[in-house]
C-alpha cells in the first residue's frame, strides 16, 4: 500500500511538471537567440577600405588539427590602400565536412581575416556543397552575423600583461546573498 501512495506522489510530480511552461521551442517558427560567442560557420573578412584582410600567411592551415584549410597564396603586390607590398589570396578552401569548430584558426590569424559566424551553414545533399570556397566565405561575411571572437580580441583576452580592469565578471551582478550551505548527508541515511 505504501508503494501505491509513493508512486502516486511521483505521478503528482510528473503532473506538476506537465503544467509548467515548456522550456523547448518549436524550431522553425521560433529560433532561440544565440550567444554572441556562438560559432558554427566561417567567413573571410574585408577591412574598412574594402580590401581583403587575408595576407595568405598559412598560419590557419598549419594549426588546424583536422588539416581542412588549404591556402594558395597569390603574387605579392602593392596594396592600393596603404601602398605597401603584401600578400593576397589566390584560393582558399575550408572543408566543413571535417571541421571540429575549435576556433584555433581564428585565434592564430594575425589580420583578423578568418572569423566564425553565429548562423550555421545550410545542410547539403552532397559533400562538395560543404567545401567552403573563397567566394562562399566572402559571401558569408555579408549574409551571416559574425561571432564575437577574432584574432585580436582573443589575444587581448589571453595577454599575460593584460590590464586588470577588463571584462569584470561582477559588472552587472547583484549583491550576492550568503549561500545556504548544504551539508551533504550520509548517502545511506534513509535506507531502512
Amino acid at each position, binding site marked *: 500500500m505504501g508503494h501505491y501512495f509513493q508512486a502516486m*506522489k511521483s505521478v503528482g510530480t510528473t503532473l506538476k511538471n506537465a503544467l509548467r511552461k515548456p522550456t523547448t521551442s518549436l524550431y522553425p517558427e521560433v529560433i532561440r537567440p544565440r550567444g554572441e*560567442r556562438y560559432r558554427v560557420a566561417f567567413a573571410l573578412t574585408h577591412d574598412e577600405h574594402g580590401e581583403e584582410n587575408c595576407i595568405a600567411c598559412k598560419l590557419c592551415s598549419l594549426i588546424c*588539427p583536422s588539416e581542412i584549410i588549404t591556402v594558395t597564396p597569390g603574387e605579392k603586390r602593392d596594396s592600393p590602400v596603404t601602398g605597401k607590398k603584401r600578400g593576397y589570396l589566390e584560393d582558399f578552401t575550408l572543408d566543413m565536412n571535417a571541421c571540429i569548430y575549435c576556433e584555433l584558426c581564428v585565434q592564430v590569424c594575425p589580420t583578423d581575416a578568418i572569423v566564425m559566424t553565429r548562423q550555421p551553414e545550410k545542410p547539403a545533399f552532397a559533400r562538395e556543397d560543404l567545401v567552403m570556397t573563397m567566394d562562399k566565405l566572402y559571401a558569408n561575411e555579408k549574409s551571416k552575423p559574425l561571432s564575437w571572437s577574432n584574432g585580436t580580441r*582573443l589575444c587581448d583576452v589571453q595577454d599575460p600583461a593584460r590590464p586588470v580592469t577588463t571584462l569584470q565578471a561582477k559588472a552587472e551582478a547583484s549583491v*550576492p546573498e550568503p549561500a545556504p550551505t548544504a551539508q551533504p548527508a550520509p548517502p545511506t541515511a*534513509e*535506507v531502512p
Partner: protein
Amino acid sequence: MTHAVFDALNPPPVADVHLDLESYDADADLMVLNLGPQHPSTHGVFRVKLVLDGEVIVKAVPYPGYLHRGVEKLLEKLTYAQQTPIVDKNDYLSPMINEQVLNMAFEAGLGIEVPRRARWLRTILAELQRLASHLVAIGTFVMDVGGSIGGGASMFMYTFRDRELILDLFEDLTGGRFHYNTHQVGGNRHDVPVGWDVSIRAACDQIERSLDEWDVMTVKNGVFRDRTIGVGVLSRDLALQLGASGPIMRASGIDLDLRRDAPYHLYDELDVQVATGTGGDCFTRYRLRAVECRESIRLIRILLEDVPEGPLCSLKPSKGPTAVKIKDGQWYVAVEGPRGEIGTYLIAGGNKGMSPYRLKIRPPSLHALATVPYLLPGHTLSDAVAILGSLDPIMGEVDR
C-alpha cells in the same frame, strides 16, 4: 592518485576470482545472450556477453572497444597547441575536465604557473561540468531502472532540461555547447562574459529546487528503492583491487577525493565535503551522485563570492602550432572528474619536442567497467541494466 594516498588505504592483494562455468550445475540449460553493443542501457557501444540460467546471470564477460578512435596515437602526431580540441571527444559528458587534465600535464612539463584568475575559472568550470555530468548520470540511471509516468523517462527529461542551463552557461563563455576548446597551455582562452555569475546563480537555484523535487520520484519512491537497494553490491576490497574511483569507490566506503586529498586549481582554499556511503549498491551510488550535485552547487556559490582579477594566461597567446615545446621527461597528472580519477601520463620528447612521445589517458570509466564481471553474476537480467546504469560508463573514454 598519488602513491601515498593510495598506500594509506592499504589495498588487499588481488584475489583470484574464478569465473569458470565448469563448476556450474551441468543439468542447467544455459543460454548466451549478448547485451549490446547497441543496447540503449549500455550508454554507448559496449557489449556484455551474458550466460543466463533462466533469468539469472551466471557469467558476464565485457567486450569494450567498439568506439576506438586512436586518440592517443593521434595526439602523438599533433603538436601541443593542437591537442585540446581532440580530447574534448574522449569523455563527451565532461569535456572541460578532459581539457584541464591534459593542459595541466603540459603545464607540469613546462613548469609554469597558471594565473589565479584562470585557476578560479577552471575550478568553477570543473564544478559546473561535474554538475552537468551527474545530471545525465542520474537521469539515464533512473531511465534504465524503468517506469514511465512518475519516474523513469520523465525524470530523464527533467535532468536534461536542467543540464541545458549549464550548457547555455558554457555557450555564453566559450561559444560551444559541447566541444569547447577553452583551455590552453598556461591558462584559458575565453574570459568571463559580463553578467555570467548572475546566470550561474539562477541555474544553481533551479537545479537545487529540481534535486529536491526528484527525491520524491527516486529515493522516496518504493518502486525505485526495491529496484536498487542491495543490487550490484561492490565491496570495499574489490573496489580497491579493480581501481574503481570516484562515486563508485566512495559508495563502497572509501573516503578518497582528489579535490581534497591532492588539491589542484583552487581546491586547496575550498573546504570540499566528501560524501561517502557504505552500501556499495546501486542506490548508494545514485544517492552519492545526488549529494555531490548539491556539494558542487555549494562550491560554485562560494567561488562566485570572490572573483580574482588579473591575467588569464601566463604564456603569450599561441600564434602557431609550434608555440609550446616540452623537453624530455615524464609527468603524471590526475584530477577528480565526475566519474573518478582521470589522469594524463605524458612522456615528452617526440617530434623534436613539439609532440608527446607517448600520452596515456587514464579513464575512470574503464576501471568502473572492470567491475562488471564481478557485479552482474547472481542478479537477474533486468538488474544488469540497472547496474550498468549506476556505473555510468562513457564509452568514448573507455575505448579512446
